[in-house]
């Protein structure tokens, strides 16, 4: 049911882990629904230089987490923010209909991390 690309990212997920001194952290989903995604970003000069994730969830949740780290690294924060769940699914060569909500989660987690980064930035410059 999953594409080869999904299975590749599921089997060899890229960028698993945490970033101790992350510039932004986002967490979405909840255990009740069976999907939690936590995502750390490192930003240098408005460019995302590193992303790491940890995910509790199904195959699609893990694969979308993995691929979105690859999609985000190297992009400016503004560019990364426009990544949609549609794009994530396309990048994985499609997802089963019942699994489309998982691709939402990955884009949401990235968005949450960027928001956290922005909030930190604002409070830093405010202080």
């Amino acid at each position, binding site marked *: 049911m*999953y594409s080869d690309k999904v*299975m590749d990212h*599921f*089997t060899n*997920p890229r960028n*698993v882990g945490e970033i101790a001194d992350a510039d932004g952290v986002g*967490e979405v989903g909840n*255990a*009740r*629904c*069976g*999907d*939690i*995604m*936590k995502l750390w970003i490192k930003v240098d000069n408005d460019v995302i230089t590193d992303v790491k994730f*940890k*995910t*509790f*969830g*199904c*195959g699609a*949740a*893990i694969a979308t987490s993995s691929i979105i780290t690859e999609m985000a690294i190297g992009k400016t924060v503004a560019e990364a923010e426009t990544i949609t769940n549609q794009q994530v699914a396309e990048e994985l060569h499609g997802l089963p209909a*019942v699994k489309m*909500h998982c691709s939402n989660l990955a884009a949401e987690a990235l968005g949450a991390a960027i928001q956290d980064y922005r909030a930190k930035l604002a409070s830093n410059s405010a202080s």
Partner: protein
Amino acid sequence: MSKIYMDHAATTPMRQEVLDAMLPYFGTEFGNASSVYGWGRRAHQALDEARDTVAELLGAAANEIIFTSGGSEGANMAIKGIAWAYQTKGKHIVTSAIEHHAVLDSVLSLKKHGFDVTVLPVDEEGLVSPATVEEALRPDTILVSIMHANNEVGTIQPIREIGAIVREHGAFFHTDAVQTAGVLDLNVGDLNVDLLSLSAHKLYGPKGVGALYCRKGVRLEPLIHGGAQERRRRAGTENVAGIVGLAKALELARQEQGAENERLTTLRDRLIQGLQKIPATKVNGSLVHRLPNNVNVCFQYIEGESMLLNLDLKGIAASSGSACTSGSLDPSHVLLAMGLTHEIAHGSLRLTLGRSTTETEIDYVLQEIPVIVERLRQMSPLYQG
């Protein structure tokens, strides 16, 4: 190691002897069992013989056996059939929270038609207590439906005791025996049941065929109206090959059941003991009242499907909750009813053994699972390993 199939509760590979018994009815003996000429009479005789076999194995009379298209149809036929036939007697139906969806959804579908439904809780081992059943019974209760053994956690229910209570009360009693047919002795007299449904593909027979036992004198409004087949209780040209296959599969299972159950119980316990060594692991369901082939565990901090995919990559076929509800995203209603949290229920794994299962397979599985669990936990934001 070649592929390992450990999902016998989802379906089983058909036995060669069963296929051999079926083949003539796909070939020269293709007649419609309702026809008067030779082809029809021979097909009819094959049905008669299959019916006798099934009836004998259930301790029933031949005319109490209705052939169906499987377990789901059987459950729907029993439940809706009784509901509509006896609605003037009462409109209350009792079932349990851990039934297969074929039973649960059949019962719930009747709510829209003005029936009143009581869904009984189970204890943390997944057992329905006869006392709870007794309390739930009302003067207008017409039917109680409690499964013989659960398909997810393998818990065997006290059907005989529940049946006695229901009969005493004057209601009808259906049991979904899809998981026990071919495994446990099914004598409808001993079990105190009025209706019992089973499905061939769970016992090394073909998919798309099953049987419903309906005690003499118990009326059923047909689910499928039409031709006069099955004594007007189930219309449709009979699936002769499938029915012959069902009877053959049941017959073989009965012969081997004793020795096979012993063998499986040993393997099952070896597997359970091995899995229990993994930290933060919970075995689900009673360890005493349990099918000989069922293992069901929850690994905390990880999610079931990603475990299944990893097992598949290692050549191990297993399931997380009931295979036929895997289209759903909710965690198992059975585990939730047993008091597990959503979080933990999401991490359930079911391994169900069968005729092909060997000790070597068990040991291979016990070697691979801890690695997979650890790997997924390392990836999990919930795990503070």
